[in-house]
């Protein structure tokens, strides 16, 4: 009897935990509206609608107009302010829900998955309505957006029907009764509104998730969004829960720092998550099993020797002679999943172009790494990265000069 009661309480708790953090069930209409809007505000931050739906350099919040880069051309984000003509003010609740969770517009045309509806489908109806309630309080902006900017033939939205059939599995997140409420909350956030899979899960050649490689890392726009499973080698296996929460909240932890697209994500979104939610995400991510990867190929001795020379002369003044860096200032290369990732794109990019790590209120220093692209040739970049990936207790596949050369060519066309 007691067990059954516990069991049903656990289910109930999980359900409440997962979908409805913070909503009061009281009968006071105004209280509910306020709570729902506050919850919607939080979820909008978690889903990071602002980043895509706000134009750069002083665009009005949520008024759209930001070009989203895809390999098929640019898509421009739409206006989701409550404006009746150019925004979503005239949409019904159902229409809003269909757009967010099904990828279908009121006129029946399909959204491209630049809008991450394959992830948002996992959100509960209640959460989506809360977001809608919050968006309804945003200042309406009359700004028409020409959304269909992809070149032919990709501007044929009809093709999305086929794509959806292949890659889109509609449906809310289902909690796993074998797991704790925290795990389920973390899974919900990561798979649903947080849409981490959008960047961190490998895609097929048509851009659909390779779900069996969930969160194993993905190369996009010159960066490799790393493996964020619990894999000990390439993922977060060596990170503690505090490492994960510190990274998401402040952009920094004792091992590494957010830069590139993740820096934006931290500032706009994860730095404002509740501490409980951050811990839930950590719980979930660390539970994801690592891959039983084969031992990486051995690095050539001559490469390691050259890499060590470069490392001592050029890298050690910040990253330390032991590769451990300085906590919260210079990342530890020994434990960094970025440096050991199977796809070294991010590491190559950092070395060639430099980077600045993110500034948050908690960690405002934002130290920058210089660019070495002018100083090191392809063989030297490959050598020093191979050295860094293999010098200390960890091992990862060598980096070849050809990969560096390709990266250098592709990066040379980028302005960011």
């Amino acid at each position, binding site marked *: 009897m007691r067990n059954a009661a516990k069991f049903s309480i656990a289910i109930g708790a999980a359900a409440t935990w997962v979908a409805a953090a913070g909503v009061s069930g009281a009968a006071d209409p105004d209280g509910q509206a306020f709570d729902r809007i506050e919850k919607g505000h939080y979820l909008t931050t978690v889903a990071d609608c602002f*980043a*895509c739906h706000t134009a750069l*350099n*002083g665009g009005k919040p949520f008024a759209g107009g*930001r070009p*989203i*880069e*895809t*390999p*098929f051309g640019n898509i421009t984000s739409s206006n989701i302010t409550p404006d009746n003509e150019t925004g979503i003010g005239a949409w019904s609740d159902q229409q809003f829900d269909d757009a967010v969770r099904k990828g279908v517009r009121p006129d029946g045309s399909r959204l*491209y*998955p*630049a809008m991450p509806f*394959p992830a948002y489908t996992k959100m509960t109806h209640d959460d989506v309505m809360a977001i809608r309630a919050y968006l309804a309080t945003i200042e309406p902006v009359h700004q028409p957006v020409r959304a269909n900017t992809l070149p032919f033939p990709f501007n044929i939205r009809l093709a999305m029907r086929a794509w959806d059939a292949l890659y889109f599995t509609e449906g809310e997140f289902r909690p796993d009764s074998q797991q704790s409420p925290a795990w389920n909350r973390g899974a919900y956030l990561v798979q649903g509104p947080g849409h981490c899979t*959008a960047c961190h899960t490998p*895609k*097929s*050649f*048509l*851009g*659909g998730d390779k779900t069996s490689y969930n969160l194993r890392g993905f*190369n*996009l*726009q010159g960066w490799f*969004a790393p493996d964020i499973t619990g894999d000990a080698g390439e993922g977060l296996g060596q990170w503690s829960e505090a490492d994960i929460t510190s990274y998401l909240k402040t952009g920094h932890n004792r091992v590494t720092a957010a*830069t*590139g*697209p993740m*820096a*934006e994500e931290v*500032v*706009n979104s994860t730095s404002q998550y509740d501490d409980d939610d951050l811990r839930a995400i950590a719980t979930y991510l660390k539970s994801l099993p690592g891959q039983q990867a084969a031992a990486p190929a051995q690095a*050539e001795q*001559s490469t390691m*020797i*050259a890499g060590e*020379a*470069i490392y*001592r*002369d*050029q890298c*050690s003044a910040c990253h330390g*002679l032991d590769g451990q860096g300085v906590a919260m200032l210079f990342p530890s290369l020994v434990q960094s999943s970025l440096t050991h990732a199977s796809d070294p794109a991010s590491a190559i990019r950092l070395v060639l*172009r*430099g*980077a*600045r790590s*993110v*500034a948050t209120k908690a960690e405002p220093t934002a130290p*920058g790494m210089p*660019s070495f*692209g*002018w*100083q*090191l040739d392809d*063989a*030297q970049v490959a*050598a020093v990265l191979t050295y860094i990936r293999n010098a200390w207790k960890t091992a990862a596949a060598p980096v070849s000069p050809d990969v560096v050369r390709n990266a250098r060519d592709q990066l040379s066309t*980028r302005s*960011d």
Partner: protein
Amino acid sequence: MDRLSAGFSMAMRRRDFLAGTAILVVNTMESRATVISGALPWTPNAGSPPVSVRPGPWHYFTSDEGRAIEAMADRIIPQDPQTPGGKDSGCAVFIDRQLAGPYGRAEGHYTGPPFMPGTKQQGPQSADGPAATYRKALAAVDRYCQSTYQGKRFPDLSDEQKDELLKNIEDGKTKLEGVDGQSFFAQVIKDTQEGFFADPLYGGNRDMVAWKMIGYPGARYNYLDWVERHNERFPLPPVSLIGRADWSPKT
């Protein structure tokens, strides 16, 4: 990997959010005025890394002037069995490239008139920058040599003759026509020795020969593990801003 097979990305375009609301600053000496607020500015590949001198024809000197400076550099820093002299270590190349650039033009100096001679403590008051000074002085040296040494030019003199002449110019015993010989020769010494000890990317100190001569490990940034190793020879070879041979894997 071509764009079609790259996969349909659902991610956001990478913008420089790291710059926040900041307007980005172009990092050169001649930057435009900008307003900075909200976040520290950032652009990739920013900064002004040094540009290596490339070997080749003189940029400033005529071939006669170049020969003369090479000869002077070789007396200021003579060749010996352990270390090349001023010429082979590239000091004349260094001086040539420096004179062809902002240093030669005295760029950044205050050039307001009137130009009046002052005390030694008041510093140089000439309208001529280094490049113009070298040209005038080398011409004067050339004229002096040809008239004094039966038509020979400075590089054609014997080492003893060169040393004697340079010493006399240095001491003021031999005057050069139209130019302050003492101050010119002091400048040549300074420029030659600077070229000898500067980073090889500037044209002198070829293969870091000067740094090897004195035991200077070069453009390094980290001696944390050596601070308390007192009275021990530092073992690593010198490295230049553009690297050292050991940086490239030996095939």
